[in-house]
């Protein structure tokens, strides 16, 4: 077996082990935060923030691949652009599900039209629109170029999501990074770092899987056209 063939099972196994360790670490070792932060519900943070980071990562892949497609159209760029948008939707949904459940305990409400929440919702809606558009339209060059432009637009919104807290305030905490008080306990910090590692591995795995899926789809479409020319299929 070549190293290339082994790399994916190794990546999958590593991701599974990191996740397994992280979950038991969060449940049994990481201390509970103060009541104002949500108490036990604050433990959602160790998946919530890394999911948001994975959303940024997927968005960045979508951005680079979309720009690459517009510059030099190819099936490979299109596949990665598509994979980036799809993974951004998945991680965005994870953030939008976990955040309100934590907010219910910390703020007393599931949702508030806070700048970060609102801008994040907008980004996820853009990626959902992109994925739905790709699913229900053709796969021609015009559709691909339009999708690439849309993918760039969705990712341009991500820095606004990130800096919205600093620019416009709101309820959303800024614990990590500039202006934040940080995590007081070393185990809390370790859990967050492990969360970032786990989500990076997961994002890489999902991006590879979805890009492969999109490439197979493109290959199949090309083959179907060839088969139609050969008279094996009715013209698509």
């Amino acid at each position, binding site marked *: 077996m070549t190293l290339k063939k082994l790399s994916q099972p190794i990546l999958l196994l590593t991701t599974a082990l990191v996740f397994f360790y992280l979950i038991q670490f969060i449940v049994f070792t990481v201390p509970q935060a103060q009541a104002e932060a949500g*108490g036990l519900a604050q433990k959602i943070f160790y998946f919530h923030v890394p999911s948001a980071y994975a959303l940024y990562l997927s968005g960045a892949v979508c951005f680079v691949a979309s720009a690459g497609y517009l510059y030099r159209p190819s099936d490979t760029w299109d596949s990665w652009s598509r994979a980036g948008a799809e993974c951004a939707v*998945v991680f965005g949904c994870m953030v939008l599900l976990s955040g309100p459940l934590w907010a219910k305990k910390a703020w007393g409400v599931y949702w508030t039209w806070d700048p970060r929440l609102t801008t994040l919702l907008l980004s996820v809606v853009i990626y959902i629109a992109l994925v739905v558009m790709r699913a229900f339209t053709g796969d021609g060059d015009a559709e691909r170029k339009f999708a690439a432009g849309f993918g760039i637009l969705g990712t341009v919104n991500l820095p606004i999501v990130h800096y919205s807290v600093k620019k416009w305030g709101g309820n959303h905490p800024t614990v990590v990074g500039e202006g934040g008080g940080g995590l007081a306990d070393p185990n809390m910090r370790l859990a967050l770092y492990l969360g970032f590692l786990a989500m990076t591995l997961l994002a890489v795995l*999902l991006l590879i899987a979805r890009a*492969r899926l999109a490439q197979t789809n493109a290959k199949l479409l090309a083959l179907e056209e060839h088969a139609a020319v050969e008279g094996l299929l009715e013209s698509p």
Partner: protein
Amino acid sequence: MGVMQTPTPNPTSTLKTPADRAQEFVAVQGGPETTSAENLMVAAYCGMWAILMLFIFLSWRRQEKLDARLGELEAALAKRGRS
């Protein structure tokens, strides 16, 4: 002649007059948060895993279908090429 003693009021048996009782309910902002943190945490983790597993399952199923279709077409084209 005995001394009259004032009975100590028992809070549990003190009855309010109709005028003292609550006569309307008004909404207040906030109030004590009673939702269980455990339930919220479990719901968040289960929800996130459910989204992830659904995505992985759908990706796997679609990849299987595409691979099967691709195999069929390649075989048909190879057969046509031989004949």
